[in-house]
């Protein structure tokens, strides 16, 4: 038997840590206003990350550029509810900054910008 065959944990076996263990069973994020498209980004004043879990650090790395909550969940491959809890931890620490409004119906100027942008792709 080769060493490789000893590895029972592979991609097909699923994650080693069950998603809800990452958040210690919490499903209610402290930040209630995190929606699918809410933009998050790692703060330039992020605190010491040594006390953070692997998942928190992965989020910090992903959010070096602004991303939506849905993108963070997709790239991390965890359910939305889990990523919302992890993000709210980071927001509380001041390590992640967040878009400060709920989804609103765009006004005319915003619609015009989107129209120009889509035409330009």
């Amino acid at each position, binding site marked *: 038997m080769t060493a490789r065959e000893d590895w029972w944990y592979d991609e097909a076996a699923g994650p080693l840590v069950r998603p809800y263990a990452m958040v210690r069973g919490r499903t209610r994020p402290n930040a209630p206003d995190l929606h699918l498209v809410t933009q*998050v980004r790692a*703060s330039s004043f992020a605190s010491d990350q040594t006390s953070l879990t692997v998942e928190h650090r992965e989020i910090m790395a992903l959010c070096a550029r602004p991303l939506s909550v849905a993108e963070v969940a997709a790239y991390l491959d965890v359910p939305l509810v889990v990523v919302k809890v992890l993000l709210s931890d980071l*927001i509380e620490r001041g390590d992640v*900054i967040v878009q400060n409004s709920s989804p609103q119906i765009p006004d005319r100027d*915003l619609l015009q910008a*989107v129209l120009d942008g889509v035409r330009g792709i």
Partner: protein
Amino acid sequence: MVFVGSDGRLTVPTAVKIVIAGGFGTGKTTMVGSVSEIPPLKTEELLTEAGVHVDDLAGIEGKDTTTVALDFGRITINTKVVLYLFGTPGQNRFWFMWDELATGAIGAVVLVDTRRLDSSFPSIDFFEHRGIPFVVAVNCFDGAQLYTVDEVRHALDLDDGIPVVLCDARDRESSKSVLVGLIQHSMNRLEAAV
């Protein structure tokens, strides 16, 4: 909870979204993929069978839970604005997700397959009842245009004010023009409202 949109040096963009709806197999993910700047992403939400968010794990083992998958894409408009395109979950029982998707959306594209017109009825009803701007896009599979725009409008019993267009969801330019039509429709609706 302090919500901050900047930390003095960095800011976050404004996010807007468009919903791509329609029955199963009408080409929603295809349309998302043809205009998105990234390969469509998938994210999952955990729901109970009752269709509500799971917000407490106590006793969850005994409940029937299910995950609902959402496909979405992204178009960076400029440094300040980013547009997301969300395909609706195929199963109509996940209305909870539809509400979250539709809240604050620019509007919706309802994709129609003329071989299965009735599969579009729930989407059209949803956006009509909530007053969300939408356009109907007839996805011409394999170039097969079985009906005219007027025939589709009549068959779906649509108001004259609702744009109906033909498209090929696989084609980037075609999908782009559907989105442009929707955004213009939303702007017209906004102007009519003031």
